[in-house]
């Protein structure tokens, strides 16, 4: 079987249309509702968080659930690749311990279950498969030639993002009174905490005698974490769409310092994105006035 699979070759049928972060960030519209609109009687949402009192709550929840489903597909593909792409060994070079392969296989099994659950939740919410664009950034983080970078990028950054998003969706389901959404997200969240913990543990173990490699892996994780903040959608800022699930992250092996670093990366990305959007909006006004 082929090893090291590029993102362009992912198998999808004609229902799915893929995009990437470059295309997403080229969209210069402002996804945040402005303070003036938000606090007027015309808008009921208290912040940009996904809550049932938003006028567009159902649509945003459907879109996010579809994003979760394609993310689960890519997580399955990423874990499966890591189980297969590297030879069993002592963890040095291009090898990974056999027990790590077993953990990746277990994770692939979990992700396959999550794909099925997410697809059924999509049915429940009235969403068709492929109705929304698929952002392939998650799988791209799983394409590194170094297995330790994959642990950092996929298990800690990607699955860490899943912890944040699932916590948000679980709360949404709870507040809306949706019995299936709250229940399913809670169960999947438990798996994600385990996946992050596996990544944290293996990263420490494999790089125990190689501090440079560990340093590079953690730097790579920061790059991926910033990408996964989607222009600041994830941070403690009130205008971010979702926040860090710090308690669950701690259970998964993140230290408070690491959580704060991720939060700061999100805030930095938010500010950069806000400035870029402002420049684009100014240019659009100039275009309209011309």
């Amino acid at each position: 079987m082929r090893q090291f699979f590029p993102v362009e070759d992912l198998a999808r049928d004609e229902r799915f249309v893929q995009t990437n972060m470059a295309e997403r960030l080229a969209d210069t519209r402002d996804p945040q509702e402005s303070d003036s609109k938000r606090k007027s009687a015309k808008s009921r949402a208290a912040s940009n968080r996904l809550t049932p009192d938003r006028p567009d709550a159902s649509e945003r929840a459907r879109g996010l659930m579809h994003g979760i489903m394609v993310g689960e597909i890519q997580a399955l593909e990423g874990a499966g690749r890591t189980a297969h792409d590297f030879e069993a060994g002592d963890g040095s070079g291009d090898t990974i311990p056999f027990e790590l392969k077993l953990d990746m296989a277990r994770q692939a099994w979990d992700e396959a279950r999550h794909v099925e659950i997410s697809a059924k939740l999509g049915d429940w919410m009235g969403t068709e498969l492929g109705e929304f664009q698929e952002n392939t950034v998650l799988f791209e983080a799983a394409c590194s030639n170094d297995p330790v970078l994959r642990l950092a990028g996929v298990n800690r950054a990607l699955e860490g993002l899943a912890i944040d998003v699932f916590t948000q969706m679980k709360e949404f389901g709870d507040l809306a009174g949706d019995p299936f959404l709250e229940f399913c997200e809670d169960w999947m969240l438990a798996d994600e905490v385990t996946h992050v913990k596996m990544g944290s543990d293996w990263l420490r173990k494999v790089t125990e005698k190689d501090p440079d490699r560990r340093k590079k892996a953690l730097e790579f994780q920061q790059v991926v974490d910033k990408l996964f903040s989607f222009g600041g959608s994830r941070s403690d800022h009130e205008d971010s769409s979702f926040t860090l699930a710090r308690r669950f992250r701690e259970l998964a092996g993140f230290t408070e310092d690491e959580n704060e670093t991720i939060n700061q990366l999100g805030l930095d990305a938010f500010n950069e994105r806000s400035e870029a959007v402002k420049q684009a909006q100014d240019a659009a006004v100039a275009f309209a006035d011309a």
Partner: protein
Amino acid sequence: MATLVAGQVSVDPAEFAQVKFDAAEIAALVTALAERLGVSNTIELVVDETTPLTKITCSIEAASSDATIVIDAQSGAIENTKALTTLGPVQLNTSVGRMLLRARDRMRTDFADVGPDDDLSLAQTAAWDTYCAGRLARAGIDIIEQRWRYNHRNRLGFSDAADADFDRLWVAQDLAWSDVIAGITAT
């Protein structure tokens, strides 16, 4: 800012800078949709291209059968969800179609007391959306019933009573406003 006028439909702006929308294509789609739904009024569609959010509202200039219909749409309301920043004919039919039916409802005397769209509660909006979406489906517009059932449940509750209310509204025709919102207090 220039406005494109094509027959009974005007689109503002006439040219888009932040999305790849074509005002003439939008006007043609709205014209065809209005014809399909039997709406012959003048229609003014104002698109806010600065945001990808999906809010859409409508108003009529007077409570008469020949009133001008004004529709305010954030760009996400008529956007192709498979190719962001491009126009989505399916999304446009669903969003603008609901507004055209809503505007036509507003011309009825038994909707005279209904406040502006922005003043409606989330449950009232959801009930009216269900009533409109059901009629769009019967008019042959591509509508996913379960999407609207989920929206109805989010606003009126995940319960048998809310589902029964959805079923009632989905098949209904010629309702008064009091009929549209009858299920809200009941659920």
